């Protein structure tokens, strides 16, 4: 018997500050994925890749810092990027579920990275021309870096998919597992609609269509099968996370919470 996948609950609750909420979503995506990537530091399969994943982690945490700092300003309640990163619990995180899943094997990490990078590059491209000056500046800068992230992860997807029988099987398994978490990235809600008046209007349908084209092109080159869209899992954007996020945050936040106000 097939167990139906969880479908995100209808989101009708209006949020008080949609721009703050919007910035949290995109800041949290990068903070959580950056932390996941940092877990590879010292564990990479080869030295170069260990360094590469740590480099990507640094960039993503840098992007998260810029976005969360802006979120703190927009919220205007005196929280800076560190307060937002270290003193919110899992229910207050707004990242998509795909970035909080444990790293799995190397193929899983790189396939996830590729699916996210492709989304991120297209999102930044759309936001780099938006009317919100600070967000546009972050988007333009992050886009430059995410482009080479995408090149790196895309090359690995091709290498693994079109590699050995073992690497192909692992890459395909990663694609199949991760696919149901990709829908959440392109699922606009009231928050997205509310900020259109601020000049931040991303056409999610167009974004999804460009992402589909890019992702299928690379997966085909990697001799991997593109899954058919099926029931998607969501909830992260409204704070309904998998069990994994809390465990990750416990590790990430322990030092800051044990020594509040410490600096080093």
């Amino acid at each position, binding site marked *: 018997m097939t167990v139906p996948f969880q479908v995100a609950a209808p989101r009708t609750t209006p949020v008080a500050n949609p721009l703050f909420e919007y910035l949290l979503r995109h800041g949290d995506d990068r903070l959580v994925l950056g932390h996941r990537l940092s877990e590879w530091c010292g564990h990479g399969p080869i030295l*170069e890749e260990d360094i590469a994943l740590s480099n990507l982690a*640094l*960039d993503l945490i*840098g*992007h998260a*810092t*810029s976005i969360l700092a802006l979120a703190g300003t927009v919220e205007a309640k005196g929280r800076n990027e560190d307060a937002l990163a270290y003193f919110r619990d899992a229910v207050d995180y707004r990242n998509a579920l795909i970035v909080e899943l444990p790293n799995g094997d190397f193929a899983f990490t790189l396939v996830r990275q590729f699916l996210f990078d492709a989304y991120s590059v297209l999102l930044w491209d759309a936001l780099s021309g938006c009317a919100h000056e600070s967000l546009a*500046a972050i988007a*333009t*800068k992050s886009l430059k870096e995410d482009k080479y992230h995408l090149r790196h992860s895309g090359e690995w997807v091709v290498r693994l998919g079109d590699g050995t029988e073992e690497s192909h099987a692992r890459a395909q398994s990663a694609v199949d597992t991760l696919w149901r978490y990709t829908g959440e990235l392109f699922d606009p809600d009231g928050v997205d609609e509310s900020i259109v008046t601020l000049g931040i209007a991303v056409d999610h349908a167009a974004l999804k269509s460009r992402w589909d084209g890019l992702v299928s092109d690379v997966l085909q080159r990697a001799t991997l099968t593109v899954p058919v869209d099926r029931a998607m899992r969501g909830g992260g954007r409204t704070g309904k996370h998998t069990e994994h996020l809390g465990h990750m945050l416990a590790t990430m936040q322990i030092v800051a919470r044990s020594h509040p106000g410490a600096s080093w």
Partner: protein
Amino acid sequence: MLSREEVWTVLQTVMDPEVPVISVVELGIVREVQVHDGGVRITITPTYSGCPAMHEIEADIRTALAAHQVPLLGIDLVLSPAWTTDWIGPEAREKLRAYGIAPPGRAEPQGLITLTRARQPVACPFCGSSDTHLQSEFGSTACKAIHVCHSCRQPFDEFKAF
């Protein structure tokens, strides 16, 4: 009180902590110097978003200005226009090469997706040979890539065109 030009000269002495042969001015990190009655305001921009050296650079700027008794009103961080290696001048590029780091080429505007690289081999900073290959796009710092020279058989860093 120092003049604007004199403040720039002081900042020329602040070296990048990770590539200590070129200054933060030569790297293009310092964007603007404003001299007011009560002191100076400096505007800087990060190289890479996650560059861990930014805090160090800020501290070094404060120290250098303090050593010249220049009151600092503040250091502002801007993201736009986004930093590019094209701001590094010819003299600084020569310093990089002499230090053993291949200087960046021109930062080509790239399409969104460039899976296949059609890159010219980077000349070895030690022997000048172009018989080199890219070992990894990610090196000891965010701004460097690792290459290997087949001629003198040395690995070397390249300051990535970005």
